[in-house]
Structure formats: structure tokens, C-alpha cells
């Protein structure tokens, strides 16, 4: 006969108040604290080491299961983070040859399978994604991380806990690239019969969570790694369940019905309802800019600075933020003014329709005689926010000052292809701007790739073919400077030039809103796409 504990206690007269307290305490000790997180992705990002699905996926199966050599400070919300030691305690460029970087590895770090982190493991990981002749080369992971490590030329072990990385050219910004490179366990790969498919189901990294269960396209369960090496990032909950809910309304309803405890990116028109139900909306400055990237090719009307500035001045960004339910921030540059790379541009991006009208008139156009052009825009998709309503709002504002834009809406995947091809590609005939929203998380992503002449598409994503000798010079100086303050100063000057020349039409920054249920006590949202789920409590 089975007897429950309550029955036993009742029978022995122990189910009284003091005993009840004992039970509660015991339950409190054994009860697992679980948080269920409704994520906007249609599938769980790749779990084998390098996540797919972009920067936003790193918070789910990247920085949870794995660690990078150089990490990002993710536990601060009131200022931008910075590079901090990860699995490497230090990284230094050799003063004699600035292309050679020496990384000292952290002692005593173990993978989830119990094997030790050392230089051999790190070199094995570089081989895994950079050397397609390596026996353990993984095409899928390589496709994700190779584009993130454009400067890396070679790698070698110096001693048991030191590795040397060599860049193709001197590049002081190289440590930012290492944020994307995560380290997985060679021992686990061997144990699982050298199968990346099996590794994806039973991964082993050094991160604060272990993957306990994976149901592709549905959920991943992450459990606390009690042996984690970094006490500052020890998870506050025992288990985080990631639940795929790509539709924003479905996700919001799941939170309202108590099926999940927090969600990312709620349905905008449901925010008041979510708040009224006692949930908390958390948002923060995020390295993202919703913009129009204007063609600077011969024949483009946007070669006229007056029109570029007018296009910026004609937009009432506060109204767009209102359209987005308040979950966005007006953009006055590529990066937010809180960024160390913002500087002090002399052209102030603001709403000034009168000034915009004057500039358009000075350029020879008016509402009766408008400048006509065509843009390629996305119908929607990740990062594009409320694409069509925002585009139509801006189209109307421009019409009132004498700029008549016809949109060619395409799916985001199509827009990406066009973006990579650049404004000079034959498919872009008649198109003078694209509307891809940009991730702007570091100097390379925010500025270098868009504005240096050596990044002109299709080599890089300088879509517009912008060429400015002064900008090139400043960027070249920045990548040669190993003083972080100097780097920031130079990148700020680059940004000032970009804003002063109005090379983009800056519209809004995403604030990456999350909605926390009443049982979520804490979540620190960093000013980045990389987030730290260990801050959930």
C-alpha cells in the first residue's frame, strides 16, 4: 500500500502548523524554479556550438550553453556594455607585429561533460569552422561564424593555455569579432561518435546552462550548470524552457493565459492588455536602426546633400514611435546618443518640415514638381518592425515636401539578396534606396561595413557605394589604434561625418521589448542583441 506523505503526517498527528512549516521548507529546498520563455523564432537555433538565426539567437543557445573567448558585458542595463574576459582572461596584440594576438585561457574551466578547456580545445574549435579539410569540420556552424570572423587568417597553440590568432591585416577591432565565436567540447564530440547531429541533441559547452531536452521546432529545456566557472553568471533559476511561438499574437495570448512566463516582442496592439493583466514591459536601447540606405551612385538624386537632409527632416519620428505603441526610440544617427561612437554631429536629425521644404526647393523640387524615385522595401520580417505602415507614413510625409517615392515591396529574404548585391547591380535599376534594418552592435557592424570604400558591395555591404576619403582615413586610423578610448573617439568622428552627410535616412531604433509575467522577479536587459538569461529570476 502506498501512503502519501500528507497521509502519513496526518495519521501521526504531525500535519499541524509547525510540521506544515517543515514541509514548506523542504518543498522550497526541492522545488525546481522554472521559467518558460515564449520566443519569436520558428525553430530552436542551432545547439551544436554556433547558433544560426542571427544575433538575437545567441541569448538562447549561444551564451547559455557556451562561452566565447572574449565576452560582452550583459548584466548592465543603464549604459552600453563593453568587452570583458570570457574563456580568455586576456587578449593582446603583439607590439612588434600587431597582426598577432595572444590569448591567455582561463584555468580550471570544465565543459559540461567534465573535460577541461585548454588550448587544444580552442584550436580544435577554430579548425571546426575555419578549415574545411579538418575531419570534424561542420559546414553548418562554419556558415554561421565564418562571416563573423572576416579578419582571422590563422590560429595556433603556443602552450597548454595560450593560443595565438593572426589577422589578415592590422585590426584593433578584431576582439569584437571574437564575441561571435563560441567554444564546444571536443571530448563530447568524440564520445558521441563524431556526429554533429548527435552533438546538437547532447551538446557540451562551458556555459551557465546545460541542454536537458530539445524538441526541434518546439522547445529547448536548459538547466542550471551548478559547476559553472563564473559566479557572477550563475543562473538564478533552475530551468529555462524556450518555447517557439513565432506569431506575436499567439505569443502574447500564451502569456495572458499563463502558458509561458515571459515573451519577447509582444503584439503591439496587445501591449495595453498585457500591462492591464499585471505583466511588466521591459525595453532598452538596442543596437538597431530602421533606416533607408540611400544610393550614392552617379545618377541617384540622393547625391544631393540637400535632399538627403530634407528626407531626414521631414519625418516626425515621435508619431512613428506612437504607431509602434511607444516601443521604439527616435533615431538621430546610426547609433543611439548613449553609444561611445555617437560623437556630436553638427546636423541635428529632427522633425522640421519647413526646413525640409526649403531644402527640397533649393534642390529644384516642390510638391507640385516632386522629385520622383523608387525604393526597395521589405513587406515585414525580423527587425523590420511594422514595415508597411511605417513606410507608408513616411511616404506621405515626403510627398508633402516634394519627394515622391514609389515602393517596391519584397520579402525580406529577397531584400537581403538585393542588399548584398549592392546598388550598382543590374537588378537595382531605378532603385535608389533599400530598407534593410541594421544591427549596429560594434564599430564594424555599425559603421565600417557600410561606409568604408573597401566594403563596397558585393565585397561587403556598403550598398550605396559611398566613398569618402576622410571617412576611410578615420576608419583606417581606428583599426590601427589599440587604445580603446582613441578607437571610440575616431569611430565617433566617423559617425559624425555619416550623420552630417545624411548618408542614411535615420528613422527609429528598436528597443527589443520583452513582457515579463508577474512571477518573473528580475531580468536585466542589456543594450545589445546579446542578452544574459542568467539574470532571469
Amino acid at each position, binding site marked *: 500500500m502506498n501512503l502519501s506523505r500528507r497521509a502519513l503526517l496526518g495519521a501521526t498527528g504531525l500535519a499541524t502548523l509547525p510540521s506544515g512549516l517543515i514541509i514548506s521548507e523542504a518543498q522550497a529546498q526541492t522545488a525546481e524554479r522554472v521559467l518558460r520563455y515564449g520566443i519569436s523564432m*520558428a*525553430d530552436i537555433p*542551432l545547439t551544436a556550438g554556433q547558433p*544560426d538565426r*542571427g544575433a538575437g539567437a545567441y541569448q538562447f543557445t549561444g551564451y547559455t550553453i557556451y562561452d566565447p573567448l572574449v565576452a560582452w558585458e550583459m548584466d548592465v542595463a543603464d549604459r552600453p556594455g563593453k568587452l570583458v574576459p570570457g574563456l580568455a582572461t586576456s587578449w593582446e596584440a603583439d607590439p612588434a607585429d600587431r597582426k598577432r594576438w595572444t590569448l591567455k585561457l582561463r584555468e580550471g574551466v570544465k565543459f559540461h561533460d567534465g573535460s577541461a578547456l585548454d588550448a587544444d580545445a580552442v584550436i580544435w574549435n577554430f579548425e571546426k569552422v575555419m578549415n*574545411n579539410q579538418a575531419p570534424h569540420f561542420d*559546414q*553548418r556552424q*562554419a*556558415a*554561421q561564424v*565564418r*562571416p*563573423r570572423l*572576416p579578419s582571422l587568417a590563422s590560429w595556433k597553440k603556443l602552450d597548454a593555455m595560450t593560443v595565438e590568432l593572426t589577422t589578415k591585416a592590422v585590426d584593433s577591432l578584431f576582439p569584437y569579432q571574437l564575441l561571435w565565436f563560441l567554444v564546444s567540447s571536443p571530448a563530447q564530440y568524440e564520445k558521441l561518435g563524431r556526429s*554533429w*547531429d548527435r552533438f*546538437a541533441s547532447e551538446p557540451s559547452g562551458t556555459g551557465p546552462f546545460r541542454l536537458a*531536452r530539445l*524538441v*526541434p*521546432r*518546439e*522547445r529547448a529545456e536548459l538547466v542550471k550548470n551548478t559547476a559553472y566557472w563564473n559566479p557572477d553568471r550563475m543562473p538564478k533559476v533552475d530551468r529555462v524552457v524556450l*518555447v*517557439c*511561438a*513565432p*506569431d506575436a*499574437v*499567439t505569443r502574447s*495570448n*500564451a502569456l*495572458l*493565459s*499563463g*502558458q509561458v512566463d515571459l515573451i519577447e516582442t509582444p503584439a503591439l496592439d496587445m501591449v495595453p492588455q498585457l500591462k492591464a493583466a499585471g505583466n511588466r514591459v521591459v525595453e532598452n536601447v538596442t543596437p538597431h536602426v530602421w533606416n533607408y540606405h540611400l544610393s550614392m551612385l552617379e545618377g541617384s538624386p540622393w547625391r544631393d546633400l540637400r535632399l538627403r537632409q530634407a528626407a531626414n527632416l521631414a519625418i516626425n519620428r515621435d508619431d512613428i514611435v506612437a504607431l509602434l505603441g511607444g516601443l521604439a526610440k527616435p533615431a538621430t544617427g546610426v547609433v543611439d546618443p548613449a553609444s561611445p561612437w555617437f560623437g556630436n554631429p553638427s546636423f541635428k536629425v529632427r522633425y522640421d518640415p519647413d526646413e525640409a521644404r526649403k531644402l527640397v526647393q533649393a534642390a529644384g523640387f516642390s510638391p507640385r514638381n516632386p522629385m520622383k524615385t523608387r525604393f526597395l522595401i521589405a513587406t515585414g*520580417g525580423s527587425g523590420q518592425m511594422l514595415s508597411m505602415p511605417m513606410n507608408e507614413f513616411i511616404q506621405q510625409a515626403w510627398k508633402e515636401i516634394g519627394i515622391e517615392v514609389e515602393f517596391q515591396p*519584397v*520579402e525580406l*529574404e*529577397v531584400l*537581403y*539578396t538585393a*542588399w*548584398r548585391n549592392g546598388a550598382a547591380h543590374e537588378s537595382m535599376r531605378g532603385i535608389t534606396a533599400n530598407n*534593410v534594418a541594421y*544591427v549596429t552592435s560594434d564599430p564594424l*557592424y555599425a559603421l565600417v*561595413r557600410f561606409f568604408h570604400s573597401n566594403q563596397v*558591395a*558585393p*565585397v*561587403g*555591404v556598403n550598398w550605396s557605394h559611398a566613398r569618402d576619403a576622410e571617412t576611410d582615413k578615420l576608419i583606417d586610423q581606428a583599426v590601427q589604434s589599440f587604445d580603446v578610448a582613441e578607437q571610440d573617439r575616431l569611430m565617433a568622428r566617423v559617425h559624425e561625418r555619416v550623420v552630417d552627410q545624411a548618408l542614411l535616412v535615420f528613422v527609429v531604433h528598436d528597443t527589443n521589448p520583452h513582457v515579463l509575467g508577474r512571477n518573473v522577479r528580475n531580468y536585466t536587459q542589456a543594450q545589445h542583441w546579446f542578452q544574459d538569461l542568467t539574470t532571469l529570476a
Partner: protein
Amino acid sequence: MLLYLIRRILYAIPIALAVGLVCFMLVQIAPGDPINAIVPADAPQEVVEQVRRDYGLDKPLPVQFGIWLSRVVQGDLGRSLATGRPVTADLVSAIGNTLMLALAAAGIGFVMGSILGTIAAVFRGSWLDKLAVGFAAAGVSIPHYWLGMVMVVLFSVTLNWLPAMGAGPGGSGSWAWDWEHIKYLVLPAVTLSVIPMGIITRTVRGVVMELLNQDFVTTLRGKGLRRGGIALHVVKNAAPSVLAVMGLQLGYLMGGSILVETVFSWPGTGFLLNSAIFQRDLPVLQGTILVLAIFFVALNLAVDLIQTALDPRIRRA
């Protein structure tokens, strides 16, 4: 009969080939690049070209199609460009989930449709008939994704009776036939059932009304058969026509409803196709559509055979 069966199975081969080819060409013609499913959007050209070579996407289209076909005949549908997982594994899991949903929706839709259609036919012109016809019209007219959302708001958010999404408390991987799991099936199945219910109602109503006017029914009445006995004869005569419509409806349901599965985050073939379409995940698209097409053909064949068994007047030669 055996020859007929063999011939129908042989017919399925060119149909499958044509479906595979059309699907392959449609995805190629559509704007966009399958490479977007693999590399980050801002990958440099050099990396994009390398990955294109790695995945064989740089080869001429006929060669790509030939390689895919040669694998398919060996039972290998390839690997997803987006996830790297074998298409067959994802497809088996998705088809299982869709089959569960489709059968539940078909069960509700067919039973309700048959009942409502019969009532409407028997009580032709009465308020019961008008009500049943109204239900049928609403069933085929209301957008089911909208109905799904309304049901979620009512039964999940407001009443908190049923879950708003998902395929079980631990996902479809740990499905069990108990209430804790079945309750996840209720809302999507009811939502999906309204269209077949409307169509079956109208079909049954039309067929039964026509049969009730036939001479043999008058004869049956003249012979003194009671209402139950007459109904048995009518149902037997109506079955072949109704079955044909039900077979088609089940085929549509098996194709998965992209919208309903998305609204309920139900991990079936519709959900899989939706994600594959947006990512230009060619192997998943081709594999899924091919398997669904074969399933559709098989289902039609099964319906034909059942029709023959029910009504020997229908000859298959």
C-alpha cells in the same frame, strides 16, 4: 481490380515526379536566394560563394534536380538548408502531428456535417434546415485563422480552460492520450473542422434530399419500412458520393493548414512549410510537398476502393 490498383499506383509515379519538378522550378523562379537560409544576411560575398559551393547550389539547375531525385528514389529527402537536420526526420514528426490534428478535425467535421446535413434534408424548409444551412455557410465563409484567434481569446485568455498554443505540456515529443495532452488538440481541431463541416453538411443535405425523392424510397415506404429502415437505405446510397468529398477534405486537412498551425504553434506540416517558404529552404519544401502529394494520391485511391466496396455498381477496371 488488382490491375486497376497496380495501374493507379503506377500513375502516382509521374504525378510525384511532376510535383517534384514543378515545386523545384517554382522555388527557383521565385525571387530570393536559398543561400539566405544558411548564412547570416550580411555575409561577405566571398563567404556566400564558398557556402554556395559547399552546398552544391552553384551547380546547374538540372544537375541539382537530378542529384535530389537520385537521393529521393533511395529514400533520402536530403537535409534542411536552414537547420542542417535530415528532412525525413522533421517531416515524419510534422506529418505525425498534422495527422493527429487532421483526423481529429475530420472526425468532428464529418460527424457534425453528416448529422447537420441529414437533419437539414429530412426537415427541408424548416427552421432546422435553415439553421443547418446557416452553420454550413458560416463554416466555409469564416476565415479559420480569425476563428482560431477568437477561440483562443475566449477559451484560453478569458476562461483559461484550454491552452493557447503548442502540442502538449512537454511538446509533441512526449505526447500521451490523456486530458493533459488532448486539451492542446481541442482548439486547433475545432478551428480546422469548420470548413469540412460546412462542405459535408451541404453535400449530405443535397445527396440525401435527392435520394429521399427517389422512387425506391417511395417503394420502401409503401412496403411499410419505418423511418430507421429507410434511413439505412438512404445512407448506404449516399455514402459513395459523400465519401468522395470526405476523402478530398481529409486530403486538404492532411496538407496541413499553414494559418491554423501558425496561430496555435502546432508543429505540423503547415508550420514546417510556412517556415521553409520564408527561408527558401528548398529541400524541406520539395520533400514536404512531394510526400503530401503522394499522400493525396494514395488517399484518393483508398477512397475509390472504398466506394467500390460500398457500391458494386461502381466498376473499376
